[in-house]
């Protein structure tokens, strides 16, 4: 018997975006307030897990055609190249640089290479969590 879970699916459609936005917020806020790449990544992944619970694996894969293993690899590469980029400026491995800029719309903001590293962490965490859940879920 196929159950009709229209309430779950409808609320999921709304809540997913709230979770996703919150995770992005947590991720960007990490440098000044609690949060960061790790928690942000986990929250994003849990949003996708919610999608998986409400819909089935096939639907979610069609909607979000992401290869999470590749995502993990990109994340690792980003983190490593951020750390290694310092070598080209004749400073030790893993030296970060930051400065303050006036950006249109956002005003005075600091831009920090640590953010790029954190993006790597974020991508790896999302990739890893989804890889684990997907491969266990797809197993029969």
């Amino acid at each position: 018997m196929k159950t009709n879970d229209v309430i779950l699916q409808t609320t999921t459609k709304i809540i997913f975006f709230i979770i996703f936005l919150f995770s992005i917020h947590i991720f960007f806020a990490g440098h000044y307030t609690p949060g960061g790449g790790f928690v942000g990544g986990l929250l994003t992944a849990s949003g996708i897990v919610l999608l998986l619970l409400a819909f089935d694996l096939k639907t979610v894969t069609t909607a979000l055609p992401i290869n999470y293993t590749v995502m993990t690899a990109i994340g690792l590469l980003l983190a490593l190249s951020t750390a290694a980029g310092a070598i080209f400026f004749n400073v030790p491995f893993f030296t970060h640089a930051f400065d303050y800029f006036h950006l249109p719309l956002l005003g005075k903001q600091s831009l920090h290479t640590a953010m790029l590293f954190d993006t790597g962490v974020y991508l790896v965490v999302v990739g890893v969590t989804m890889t684990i859940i997907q491969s266990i879920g797809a197993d029969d």
Partner: protein
Amino acid sequence: MSFVYFIFIPMLAALVIPFLYKKVRGIHTGWFVLAVPVILFSLYTTFLSKVKNGESFTSSFEWIPSLNISVTSYIDGLSLLFSLLITGIGSLVVLYSIFYLDKTREQLHNFYVYLLLFMTAMLGVVQSDHMISLYFFWELTSISSFLLIGYWYKRDRSRFGALKSMMITVFGGLMMLGGFVLLSIMGDTYSIRELIASAPELGNHEWFVWSLILILLGAFTKSAQFPFYIWLPDAMEAPTPVSAYLHSATMVKAGLYLVARFTPIFASSEWWIWLVTGIGLLTLFWGSFFALKQTDLKGILAFSTVSQLGLIMSLLGAGAISFHTGIEEDSIFKYAAFAAIFHLVNHATFKGSLFMIAGIVDHETGTRDIRKLGGLMSMMPISFTIALIGSFSMAGLPPFNGFLSKEMFLTGMLSIQDFNLFAFDTWGILFPIIAWIASVFTFIYSFYFVFRTFTGKHKPDLLPKQAHEAPIGMLISPAILGSLVVAIFFIPNVIGDVLVKPAVVAIQPYLYDVPEDIHIHIKAWHGPNIELWMTIGIVLLGYLLYATLSKWQPLYNKFPQGFTLNRLYDTMMFLSEVGTNRLTRFYMTGFIRSYLVYMFTGIVLLTISTVFIKEAFDISFATLAPIRFYELIIALVLIAGTLTILLAKSRLTSIIALGAVGYSVALFFVIFNAPDLALTQLVIETVSVALFLLAFYHLPKLNRHENRMKFRLGNALVAIGVGVTVTIVALSAHSQKLVPSISSYYEKTVYKEAGGGNIVNVILVDYRGFDTLFEIAVLAIASLGIIALIQLRLTKKKEVNRIEDK
């Protein structure tokens, strides 16, 4: 002339031999090999004239210069004597083996490669001045001897004998290495000559006796002394040329060489004198007594070799006494070393020839069993003559060289009771008595060997082959040795001056400076003294006992088999294999829970004992913060959750309780001001509880027992122990903070230097970003591992086969 490279000539020749064997099939490979020892022998004879005048030569090359290890060849009287023995007997043995080993049926390339390797090793042992290179060559003799004994590797007995000799000699070799290392630490040098020069200071060192005993263990195992002689009779499974070469003339004398070489260092110790003389004499008696029990020709010769080696060993021990008596006193001890070396030469000649005769008898009749042999005298007259010469020399009868050395031996043993040091004047009376009894037995087995084989009734129906005289080529080598036996009796002083005296100078440098100082003249007739009467007694009693041999020889079989040394060795080997197997099976249970118990118990014992030995336990409440009410509540929840996990009947309850514990830890993070940790802990706990539930859901239906965990006292004790240990360590560590925390640095610089506000995150990505980089790598590896586990399962046989087909 760098004669150190002479040592390696046989080894280099061994490289070429297999090619010659494969390419030149028409000619027996032995003919090519024969050139090597002959050339070396003639090279070494060129040293004779100079060494005779007391000169010595050194030649060396650096091996490992940074560790001060070199290969040094030192030629003095002693090493030249041995080098001549090795190459001389080596030539004769190779010549003999050409006729003994069939070129179509035997794997000659193996044989000669091993033999040449052995020759290099043996030359290295006797010429090395550096102890490490001496040890290197020493083990090379063990290995090549192992290969030679196991030459007919398809026979069980060969493999057993090879393994046995390997185990015993390598044991001794390792002990000897230990002695060398101790000696080199004491003397601060590896050179034997330098050690001899500084010998007086070494005697007071606390390790002196230890190094003495260890080095003697090496010498005793190699020279088949009591109780290590048991490998030698089993080594008789080797081809007879090998037995003649290794196990009578050369390798078993390596131990004698070692004792002779180290005598100047250790002679001052009473341990040395007692051990070398006592063990030598015991071996002499034991070997001669049990030689009569043997029925195999080579078995008799093996025991006789053991006994003769004991004789030489005891003489070397008596020679060391001269260190205490000095040269002024006209004591006999200074002749003992001379007698030892003289008998060593004599033994090499007659025992080599006897082994070759035993090989001939085996080769021409098909058996070595003395009960089947008899009456071969008319069929093999030449062999009989040589055997007779060898046996009479071994028995100590004139006019053969054994007579001379036997007389000197008796003289040495008689005078030992005159020595009034180290309690020799009381116990010393036993020495000549044992020596005399052993000589009687030597006389009997010599007669037993030769007359049971060649006289009596011929039993052709018992023999596998029709007996006939050996080919002339096979008889050349024993004939040469046999004629030497007679020649030495008539011209003993030529051998004495040229070979023996320079060697004695090397053994007793504290007595003589040059060989001319030794005023010893060997006389075949030395008047009607007590030794002569002893010899007459030996001959009379020996002949009487030999005549009645068939009456009392069966008594040997009454000797209980359970108490033999071979049985002891077998039991030891059995126990070491089965015992260690059982021991390993006892603790390697294959259950992870056992190993966890070992590990945790180890941790508890090590930590607790360290804490109490170092008196590190300390509790101080001074720096503690006050406990707040809600901390207490969460702690109670935590404890309740933990107890639920332990006592729950269902696994589902345990999983839920584990989740509760995780969330209360998150709450702790909240109230201890760690928001990042709290966030991560919450999400991670949720994910892991979900994964636990997944695992629970997939438990197999068959064994899903919803039972409470069984109580085991041992486990409970270990768990309590671990808990107590960790608590003690935590309390002690918290109570003694020795250095201030570095966190204030982060507080100060987090905005200025790193441009951030969240210290935790900035530490993670900036200060300590390196750790984070590898933690995400760990996560990536874990996910790939899960993919590999789930998706790459090769459960079906078909798929496996498909992959293998590719």
